[in-house]
């Protein structure tokens, strides 16, 4: 239900002041905390070393190739003493007493191993057995403590981030997710450094709400907004994602709960899945320092092959052509550059059984291929663990990031890609006196160097996250924990056109060269309070019970400040106050809150069969006033059948069967249930209001219902592991925002790109598919081993109903519809099925699809289904070849198929801005239907038809390659280190696609051409390629 409280007079001003002070204090305190922590721990380190009484050190190796196992946890049995292996597989434990200890070694992908060690032994060698399926591995499910995979009735994808970042070039959380977890689809927006992506887990489950999964870090919900930043692409799209504020080097692992069956305990908001990020933590022992240095380049691969040759008539009537090479020659400078990438990470971890720490700091600067695009940021993290007694465990995490992402204008904003895609032979300086005077050098509008001078767009971000967790086990059968934390993001989204007098006379920029300043500051705060308790009993020796209850409270606060002005009196000034025209200001605040509780019972039989049932109750501030709380049930079963005495298939070592059913939800947008007006200024400065949202008091949450069946199996002595899942997910009461007819008068807040919409619970969406993860050791010898990983996921998506009787479709954006019987947000357009060309190349006899395979006059033809916007099939294949123990060669190819994109580049070249395509001048060389599309328009017999632009976007990419070599110890010592690894890694090195645009992965993230299921690519930068050389040192 919607609740509101009035704000007292003056409160906004005070609130702003308090927020500002809090923000400043937060920044300063965080910086001080981080510095103090690193300094303090550095001082603490020698003391810890002196405190050691006995030492065990050694190396953890994998069986077969005897490759070092990095990131393995080595713990002295029965104590908190532990260590984590480094890149060379080495560990060191201090503070030991006695003469003999038992060590437990755990690592994702390996069978847990125990080893006896003599105190004082520093050359211990522990060999771990690879396990393709590890049922004793624990994952986070929402209850206190972790749950072993054997007890889970649903699939949970785990990404060993520490292992990935060690060998592959990973720039972001999105890079970590891509191609590694079946069912998780990452869809980037632009290749500009700092650009983010959308993430879809098990398809599109919502018609109108965000389809992004929830994001948790160390148990606390974090800001997961995508499409933030200044509007760099026009059409309302901004490409920066908050997912990517998290430094991949700080991540230990990522766990993905993929849908309602797994995420019921996360309640309303979790129906799109949950991404859990677990950051690195310290283990007891002497301080272990790590230093990582990266140097590399970002570049646009093959611009000559990507950009189409353009054609135009020139004086005299001849048709002149211009390709990228010609344009670059005419420009007289490099249109795209090799951007320099550099990153420096420093970390230290260690501690004692009582207190453990992990502290890291990093600084990175990455330059894009466009002249003004760069990313600069520093990132600090301090994680602490305190174990005052066997009954209490306290964890605290502090993270702080600060930086700037400078974006180049793209798409409708103009800019480098825009002016290059539309390169114009008529604008070559040698074409005419007028062209020479304008000095466009073949670019369409402004030269790229001019664009980069005048349009300065950037986002400053300052983000502080803090989380705490207290786990208490007062008695052996009862455990409870309290998680709490906050995530505060301060975004400064800036647009600045400096006054550049020499460009005022340039018609491409005109009055914009007089200057403009726009500031959109946002302060977003997520707060989490999460209590959970579990009582565990052995009812009989073979029958166990675990009863869990929990309550969660989440609150989000989104503040917004806006300032705008035009025309600087003189060059050199940049503030809104320095503008002399059209100044305007705005301020807003939105809040939402949710409160939920759950109870769950899990019964285990003989540690092989696990049955779980639970229910969650949620209430949310955005529910309509006529809607009360919602309940979500869950049931699951897990059966490790391979551990039954009757199991007699030696080739199948492990087999777990699982089944799960669960529900979760998705809350409507804040205030979408309320009919409201916006304040306005009336005549003579009087107060006024204007209609805003029509509202819907009956609005409730979407309800996701999911069933999944699957198995986890290990074959051939664990050489091959398979995880297979079939799922069927239904979204009931799917929330649809349809355009409100303008005649109702409530028009939203269009000045802020929030157009008139009304949300209502309508219809049903079905998603189904399979997910397969296969891991295997193709071969292993003493000096060589090859590991292969294969992922495959399919998604079948269909709108079953739109709620209202007879309602078959609603528009979902330009050329997209939500239509019953088809995937969400599919492409619909008239389709030309036949045409002929006359002798001059003019299309005649043009007929369109009549909806049943026949031809009909295009003016009366129906819009027919052309394809889906989200991939239907995605997968990846990765290979790691280990040679001579210390050399690892790695590669990952991923693909996405079964979807289409609108090739906006061809659209603007061939149709929108006049003819620049070869089809315009040599139509007889082309298919008559394509020519008919190019020639269609409002002033000819065939109306504008863009079916030829909605193109299959299937692709495969050579996403990652690397070669990593662990240097011999003596070489490391020459650098003063105890271990050293060097690596050369590449990213986005090849693309195989038939897509006609610049980049099958690029698209708008927001606006009328973007949004939740948009797939419109237009003059945005393709994904950049990278080569990075790194040195990793340990001390």
């Amino acid at each position, binding site marked *: *239900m919607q609740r*509101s*409280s009035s*704000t007292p007079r003056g409160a*906004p001003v005070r609130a702003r002041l308090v927020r500002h002070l809090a923000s400043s204090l937060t920044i300063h305190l965080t910086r001080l905390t981080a510095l103090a922590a690193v300094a303090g721990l550095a001082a603490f380190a020698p003391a810890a070393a002196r405190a050691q009484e006995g030492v065990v050190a050694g190396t953890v190796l994998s069986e077969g190739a005897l490759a070092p196992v990095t990131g393995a946890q080595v713990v002295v049995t029965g104590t908190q003493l532990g260590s984590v292996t480094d890149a060379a597989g080495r560990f060191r434990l201090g503070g030991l007493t006695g003469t003999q200890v038992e060590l437990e070694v755990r690592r994702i992908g390996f069978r847990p191993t125990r080893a006896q060690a003599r105190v004082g032994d520093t050359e211990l060698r522990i060999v771990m057995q690879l396990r393709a399926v590890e049922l004793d591995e624990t994952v986070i499910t929402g209850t206190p403590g972790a749950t072993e995979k054997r007890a889970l009735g649903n699939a949970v994808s785990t990404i060993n981030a520490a292992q990935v970042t060690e060998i592959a070039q990973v720039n972001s959380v999105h890079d970590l997710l891509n191609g590694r977890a079946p069912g998780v689809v990452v869809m980037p927006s632009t290749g500009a450094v700092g650009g983010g992506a959308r993430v879809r887990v098990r398809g599109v489950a919502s018609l109108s709400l965000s389809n992004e999964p929830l994001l948790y870090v160390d148990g606390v919900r974090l800001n997961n907004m995508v499409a933030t930043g200044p509007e760099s692409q026009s059409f309302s799209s901004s490409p920066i994602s908050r997912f990517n504020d998290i430094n991949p080097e700080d991540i230990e692992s990522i766990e993905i709960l993929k849908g309602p069956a797994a995420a019921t305990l996360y309640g309303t908001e979790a129906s799109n899945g949950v991404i859990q990020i677990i950051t690195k933590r310290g283990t007891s022992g002497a301080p272990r320092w790590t230093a990582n240095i990266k140097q590399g380049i970002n570049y646009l691969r093959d611009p000559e092959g990507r950009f189409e040759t353009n054609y135009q008539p020139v004086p005299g009537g001849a048709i002149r052509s211009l390709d990228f090479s010609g344009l670059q020659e005419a420009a007289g400078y490099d249109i795209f550059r090799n951007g320099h990438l550099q990153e420096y990470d420093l970390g230290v971890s260690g501690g004692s059984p009582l207190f453990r720490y992990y502290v890291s700091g990093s600084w990175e600067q990455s330059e894009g291929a466009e002249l003004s695009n760069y990313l600069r940021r520093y990132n600090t993290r301090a994680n602490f663990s305190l174990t005052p007694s066997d009954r209490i465990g306290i964890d605290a995490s502090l993270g702080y990031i600060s930086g700037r992402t400078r974006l180049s204008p793209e798409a409708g904003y103009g800019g480098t890609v825009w002016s290059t895609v539309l390169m114009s032979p008529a604008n070559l300086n040698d074409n005419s006196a007028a062209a020479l005077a304008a000095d466009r050098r073949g670019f369409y509008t402004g030269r790229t160097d001019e664009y980069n001078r005048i349009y300065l767009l950037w986002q400053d971000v300052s983000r502080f996250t803090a989380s705490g967790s207290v786990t208490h086990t007062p008695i052996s*059968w009862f455990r409870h924990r309290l998680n709490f934390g906050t995530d505060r993001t301060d975004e400064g989204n800036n647009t600045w056109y400096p006054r550049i007098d020499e460009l005022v006379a340039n*018609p491409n920029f*005109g*009055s914009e060269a*007089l200057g403009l300043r726009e500031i959109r500051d946002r302060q977003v705060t997520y707060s989490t309070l999460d209590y959970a308790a579990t*009582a565990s*009993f*052995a009812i009989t*020796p073979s029958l166990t*019970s675990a*009863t869990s209850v929990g*309550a969660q409270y989440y609150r989000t606060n989104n503040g917004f400040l806006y300032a*705008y002005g035009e025309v600087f009196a003189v060059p050199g000034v940049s503030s809104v106050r320095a503008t002399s025209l*059209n100044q305007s200001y705005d*301020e*807003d*605040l*939105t*809040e939402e*809150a*949710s409160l939920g*509780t759950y*109870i769950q019972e899990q019964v285990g039989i003989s540690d092989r069969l696990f049955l779980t049932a639970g229910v969650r109750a949620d*209430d949310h501030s955005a529910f309509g006033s006529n809607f009360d*709380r919602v309940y979500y049930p869950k049931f699951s079963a897990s059966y490790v059948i391979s551990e039954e005495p009757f199991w007699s298939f030696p080739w199948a070592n492990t087999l777990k069967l699982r089944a799960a059913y669960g529900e979760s939800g998705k809350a409507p947008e804040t205030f979408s249930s*309320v*009919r*409201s*007006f*916006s*304040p*306005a*200024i*009336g*005549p*003579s*400065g009087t107060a*006024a*209001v*204007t209609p*805003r949202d029509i509202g819907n008091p009956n609005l409730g949450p979407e309800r996701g219902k999911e069933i999944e069946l699957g198995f986890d199996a290990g074959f051939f002595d664990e050489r091959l592991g398979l995880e297979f899942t079939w799922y069927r997910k239904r979204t009931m009461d799917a929330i649809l925002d*349809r*355009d409100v*007819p303008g*005649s*109702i008068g409530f*028009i*939203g807040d*269009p*000045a802020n790109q929030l*157009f008139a919409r009304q949300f209502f619970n309508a219809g049903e969406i079905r998603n189904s598919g399979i997910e397969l993860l296969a891991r295997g050791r193709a071969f292993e010898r003493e000096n060589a081993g090859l590991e292969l990983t294969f992922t495959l996921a399919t998604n079948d998506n269909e709108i079953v109903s739109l709620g209202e009787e007879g309602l078959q479709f*609603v*528009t979902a954006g330009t050329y997209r519809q939500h239509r019953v019987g088809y995937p969400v947000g599919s492409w619909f357009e008239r389709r030309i099925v036949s045409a002929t060309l006359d002798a001059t190349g003019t299309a005649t006899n043009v007929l369109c699809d009549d909806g049943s395979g026949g031809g009909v006059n295009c003016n009366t033809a129906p819009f027919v289904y052309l394809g889906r916007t989200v991939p239907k099939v995605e997968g990846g294949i990765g290979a790691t070849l280990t040679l001579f123990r210390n050399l690892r060669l790695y590669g990952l190819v991923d693909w996405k198929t079964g979807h289409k994109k609108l090739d906006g580049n061809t659209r603007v070249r061939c149709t929108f*801005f006049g003819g620049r395509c070869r089809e315009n001048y040599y139509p007889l060389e082309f298919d008559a239907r394509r020519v008919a599309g190019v020639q269609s328009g*409002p002033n000819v017999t065939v109306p504008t038809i863009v079916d030829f632009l909605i193109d299959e976007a299937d692709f495969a990419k050579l996403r990652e390659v690397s070669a990593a070599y662990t240097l011999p110890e003596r070489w490391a010592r020459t650098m003063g280190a105890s271990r050293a690894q060097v690596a050369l890694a590449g990213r986005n090195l090849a693309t195989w696609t038939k897509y006609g645009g610049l980049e099958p992965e690029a698209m708008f993230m927001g606006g009328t051409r973007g949004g939740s299921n948009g797939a419109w690519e237009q003059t945005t930068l393709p994904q950049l390629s990278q080569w990075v050389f790194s040195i990793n040192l340990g001390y």
Partner: protein
Amino acid sequence: MDIMNIQSLARRAGALGAMALALTACDKLLEVDSPSRIPAETIEDPAYADLLVNSVVADFECALGSYAVLGGLIGEELDDATQTADRYPYDIRNAQPTDRRYAVNACQDLGVYAPLQTARVTASNAARFLSGWSDAQVPDRQAKLAIVRAYEGYAILLLGEGFCSTVLSTFDADGNPVYGTEITPAQAFAEAEARFTEVIDATPAPPDSVRNMALVGRARARLNQGNFTGARADAALVPAAYVKLASASDDDARRRNRAWAQNSATSTATSVGAPYRNLNDPRVPVLNTGTNGPTGIPLWRQLKYPEAESPFRLASGEEARLIVAEAAIQANTPADLLTATTIINEFRAQGNQTQLVAPTQAELRAALIDQRRRELYLEGQHLYDLIRFNLPFDPAVGTTFPGGGTYGNVRCLPLPNTERFNNPNLG
């Protein structure tokens, strides 16, 4: 793990569960702040009658500015000088019902359909509330009611003039939408006329300024319906010096004069259209900046609205006289033609034009059209003159557009798909 009896387990779990579920009753925790949104029920109060009236005026004034510019682009009063999607489809005359910009954009972003509908609905709702309240609750209630009805009439009038068809939805007494059906411009003009008539016939009589505003509006609506006699009768009642302005200010972007925002010393988004560049008429003050836009067109600046605060003229004695002249030309008697000639020659004198001597009816009609485009330049009038007089396209359909492509033939804006696809009465 301890072994214990199931009863004990159930008791403990039940207690914990009950505690947890009790938390969901904490409604206080779910209270959220909404400092910039005003719930509808807040303003539906007689105490806010003035606020409602001011809101009606504000919504209409912003919509009028946007309509004047967009109509000016279609009607050659302005040319797009940057070739962005904001203006290009209108200047090239190929606006399509799929285009969302004219349909849903805010008035400050050159939307016209939604802003005009907002102005109409705001006025309609205000009239509904004012009608339901008493004179004791609202001082000058009848005058306020007349004002909002007059603005409602003008909003409907512009929807009829600018769109090939339109829809007039309303709200019932419970605040539920009552969706309208698609109506023709003629039907819209009849609806507008009814609103103006309500003002003119109101008792007690509204203030003269409001009544004159309604008289000019009804004369215009009647003219559009071919009721020349009725139009002339209304127009003749309007004092020559009467003028009703739509105010503008520099308070915020929404309040600024939209023509100035699109064409001024600080905005080269548009240029003055070619037919208006060399009139040498003080009523169409322009300046050649000597520079070209990106598409090569010369940049001419309009000087009629030199500041953000420059008001638009909504209704005036001048317009009324031109209506009288037009009706007289239509009547085509010697006396009427003389009346029309006299009026038109007075206007021609203002424009430094020679006087007409014994013109024919056709010559007078051409002269009238010429005077209307000069006198009412960039006031949101010329687009419908092009339509109702069926004037030739200039440039002709098929002429190469400076930014690429060719000029089309779309004059009246089509009913947007956002209305057609989402209004349950359409489809």
